[in-house]
């Protein structure tokens, strides 16, 4: 195989955002195609280099081929779309139907989310897993916060054992997700600025009764914001074009944050709102930069990116 062909296949491999198995199949298929065509062209009298160049020009730009193949694979079924949006819908129901007021409902939901996440993780991390994965981190964070409020001495347990363990878990998740596609990391983290926004709006300080009253007041709007996220996820899964997928998530994120600021009137200062917007932008920007760094080898030592042979 000439250097031109190797370079062409490497370009497709780098631009192709599919799971490892599908990527391997696509590259093998194209490689066989190129081998067949180069053989035929050399038999017709062309030099190997000329044959390789002709073949590549007939196939078209590597980026275009990769993009079109991605679009052929990127659309999920309606069933996958609904399943991916289910954690958002569950959170929507939690607030819309006041399930949050009973600890039983909340616990059942969190256990269901954890079981589904573990199942998806061991079943090859399909696209529907990532929204579930985001919510499954909530109990991990909540348990860490709870440990910090324990009597002195116990909070050291959180600092020494729990926080490093939590960070290690986060690193593993980011590492595996970034290898698949940075966009899934954004899909996973999308609810975070919205949850933080509502958390600030409810004011979890001072009298618990006051906070609970505020939570009751905001509950329908919190439910609505999770419903918006569910709709965005369904659209994300059903769309083929990558830029449209990014646009849907980003616009929904910004619109939902604006909804939070609107209904939490007076409770979210402008600077807090702007910081939340910045966090939302970072949720898209940081994973993209991270993936770029990993692929270019800049952060290869931190995140284990191994291009396929």
């Amino acid at each position, binding site marked *: 195989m000439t250097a031109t062909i190797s370079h062409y296949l490497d370009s497709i491999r780098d631009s192709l955002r599919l799971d490892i198995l599908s990527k391997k199949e*696509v590259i093998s298929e194209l490689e*066989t195609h190129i081998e*067949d065509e180069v053989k035929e062209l050399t038999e017709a009298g062309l030099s190997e280099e000329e044959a390789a160049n002709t073949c590549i020009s007939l*196939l078209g730009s590597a980026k*275009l081929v990769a993009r079109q*193949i991605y*679009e052929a*694979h990127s659309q999920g079924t309606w069933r996958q779309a609904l399943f991916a949006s289910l954690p958002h819908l569950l959170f929507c129901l939690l607030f819309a139907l006041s399930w949050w007021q009973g600890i039983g409902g909340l616990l059942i939901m969190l256990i269901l989310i954890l079981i589904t996440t573990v199942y998806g993780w061991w079943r090859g991390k399909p696209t529907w897993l990532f929204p579930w994965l985001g919510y499954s981190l909530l109990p991990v964070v909540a348990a860490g916060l709870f440990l910090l409020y324990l009597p002195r001495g116990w909070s050291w347990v959180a600092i020494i054992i729990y926080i490093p363990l939590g960070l290690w878990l986060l690193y593993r998740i980011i590492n595996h997700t970034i290898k698949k596609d940075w966009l899934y990391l954004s899909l996973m983290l999308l609810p975070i600025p919205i949850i933080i926004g509502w958390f600030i709006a409810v004011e979890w300080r001072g009298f618990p009764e006051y906070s609970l009253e505020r939570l009751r007041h905001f509950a329908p709007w919190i439910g609505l914001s999770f419903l918006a996220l569910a709709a965005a996820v369904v659209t994300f899964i059903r769309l083929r074009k990558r830029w449209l997928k990014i646009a849907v998530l980003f616009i929904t994120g910004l619109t939902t944050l604006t909804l939070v600021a609107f209904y939490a009137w007076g409770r979210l200062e402008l600077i807090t709102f702007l910081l939340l917007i910045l966090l939302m932008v970072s949720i898209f920007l940081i994973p993209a930069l991270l993936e770029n760094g990993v692929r270019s080898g800049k952060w290869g030592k931190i995140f284990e990116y191994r291009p396929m042979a």
Partner: protein
Amino acid sequence: MTQRRELIKGNIDSLLLCLMSQKPMYGYQIIKELEHRSEGYFQFKEGTLYPALHRLEKVGLILGKWQMLPTGQQRKYYHITDKGYAILVEKRDQWQDFLTAMNLIIQPSGSK
């Protein structure tokens, strides 16, 4: 040439299903077969073939199977599925109706 490309693009599913209904084929073979049977009319960017094949495979109209050749080389052969065959019959009927209607209008010899 652009118009011809657009025409091919719009009918690529029917062309691929039709070829695969006759025998299982692999990518490069499909390109050669289309070019040969159309006497050179169907020439398109080869890179667009694979996205089309993968799209048809994803919706279950065709099925790709890897086959090991005696030379040790592996090739992915695409087979038409029952669902694909049903769609082909439908598309063929639509095409025949369209062609008949077009001929009634376009062909000068058909005038009263």
